């Protein structure tokens, strides 16, 4: 299929990735070849092509076969877009910034999968889940890895008025989905750590305190991230309210954050179907 370099406001990565997911699941073609093709697209000079490639990779990591992310995790390097800049288009400057941040997040996501030897966003949750049943040593090794991935996610740092096209909107939606799962795992790890805190050695206590302090700082940043999602109104998960999460998270840190109702009414929502 030809790879369009047009920035279509109705960009729907789900159709393309549905083909790719089927390709991975039902054929004997190697995921290595697929990853090579997508990496090649990510080396284009056009921000549209690069951004679409990144979104496709992310979509496959989230929804695709586990073999795909497993292969990416085994690579020594994934994307080298830290210096990417497309000066050809007016929107290129702004989008290049997000490409650099987004590629860094995907690299961190892949590295985290490699270090933890599984995708933490797909790990089992709950009292018998992965993060709740880890021992102290595993927690102290795993939580910093999650924290670094979470930082890279939050560093995407897009304001509502910067989500001006379908591609960056698709990227933001995938990041939002990841943020829920990643923070859920992070949160469960912290609860487990607190439960074990007073049975730890002194050196472990120091590390745990440092991890907990960093977690509290990240909850504030998550609240800001959720505010953007709430304003976008493109998050429509049954039984879940971003505003409620914001109030819960901010309740840990201090007084509740100001509401965004006025801004939400002023902004026209863009709904992207997945």
């Amino acid at each position: 299929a030809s790879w369009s370099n047009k920035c279509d406001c109705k960009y729907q990565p789900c159709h393309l990735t549905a083909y790719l997911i089927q390709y991975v699941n039902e054929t004997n073609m190697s995921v290595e070849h697929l990853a090579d093709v997508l990496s090649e697209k990510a080396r284009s000079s056009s921000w549209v092509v690069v951004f679409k490639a990144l979104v496709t990779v992310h979509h496959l990591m989230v929804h695709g076969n586990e073999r795909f992310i497993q292969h990416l995790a085994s690579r020594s390097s994934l994307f080298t877009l830290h210096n990417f800049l497309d000066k050809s288009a007016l929107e290129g400057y702004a989008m290049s910034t997000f490409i650099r941040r987004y590629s860094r997040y995907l690299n961190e996501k892949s590295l985290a999968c490699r270090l933890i030897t599984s995708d933490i966003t797909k790990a089992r949750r709950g009292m018998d889940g992965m993060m709740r049943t880890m021992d102290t040593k595993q927690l102290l090794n795993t939580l910093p890895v999650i924290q670094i991935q979470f930082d890279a996610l939050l560093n995407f740092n897009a304001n509502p008025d910067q989500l001006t096209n379908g591609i960056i909107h698709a990227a933001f939606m995938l990041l939002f989905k990841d943020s829920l799962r990643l923070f859920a795992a992070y949160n469960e790890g912290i609860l487990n750590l607190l439960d074990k805190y007073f049975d730890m050695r002194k050196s472990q206590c120091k590390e745990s305190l440092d991890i907990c302090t960093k977690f509290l700082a990240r909850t504030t940043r998550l609240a800001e991230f959720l505010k953007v999602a709430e304003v976008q109104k493109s998050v429509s998960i049954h039984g879940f309210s971003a505003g409620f999460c914001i109030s819960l998270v901010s309740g840990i840190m201090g007084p509740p954050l100001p509401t965004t109702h006025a801004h939400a009414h002023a902004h026209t929502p863009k709904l992207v179907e997945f």
Partner: protein
Amino acid sequence: MASKWPGVGVSARRGPLQEREQLAEEAEQTAGGHPEPSGGALGSLCRHFQRRLPLRAVSRNLNLGAGPSWKRLENPEPARQGLQAAARSAKNALGSVSQRIQESCQSGTKWLVGTQVKARKRRRGAQTGSRPPTHTPGQKSPRLCGAAPASSALGPRERPCHRLSGHVGPRAHPQWRSRREPTFRSPYSSTEPLCSPSESDSDPEGLQHLQRLSRQLDGAIVAEERRQATADHELSGIHAAPR
């Protein structure tokens, strides 16, 4: 659900954490009567000065002369002035860093203390016989909060109080003093828990928030996965339809 991947690779970031843990444990064993201060920066500074100021036995072959070789402590040799100045600046740095660590520890430990009570209650309910907890928060305060042990090891002539207050600022001095005073008290002087019995009856709010957040997030993720599965099913039906 995600499965563990064999042969993907050992954590490269575990190495530094494990090494730090080993170094800390080795330092604990070798330090003996000099418990190291909290924080990696403090510990490394402390170890650095321990290495720089080794105590050596005086050789018998030294020609010390007939009279006493004591010199006035108020006027040290120029060669030693640089070392003492470095020690003073290190103590100032230790003091300011320790104050910052104390502040962050206090805000964190206030929340963490409450979990101890909950853990105790849970253990008492789970076990038939009660046993005392292995740690009390009072034992941790000297390690978590302060460079007091390191500064007290430098000798009675050194006055970290005045120097630190001069370095930090006069406004911070009373607060610093009131915070540091508890660390000089023996952790074994009182067996009472840090929180009063009335406080121990309720869980800290922060922990409750986290637990509620965990339930809320879990519900949202499950709902979103169901919605995604439905959408994928519809999409696969569209693509499988004959053209």
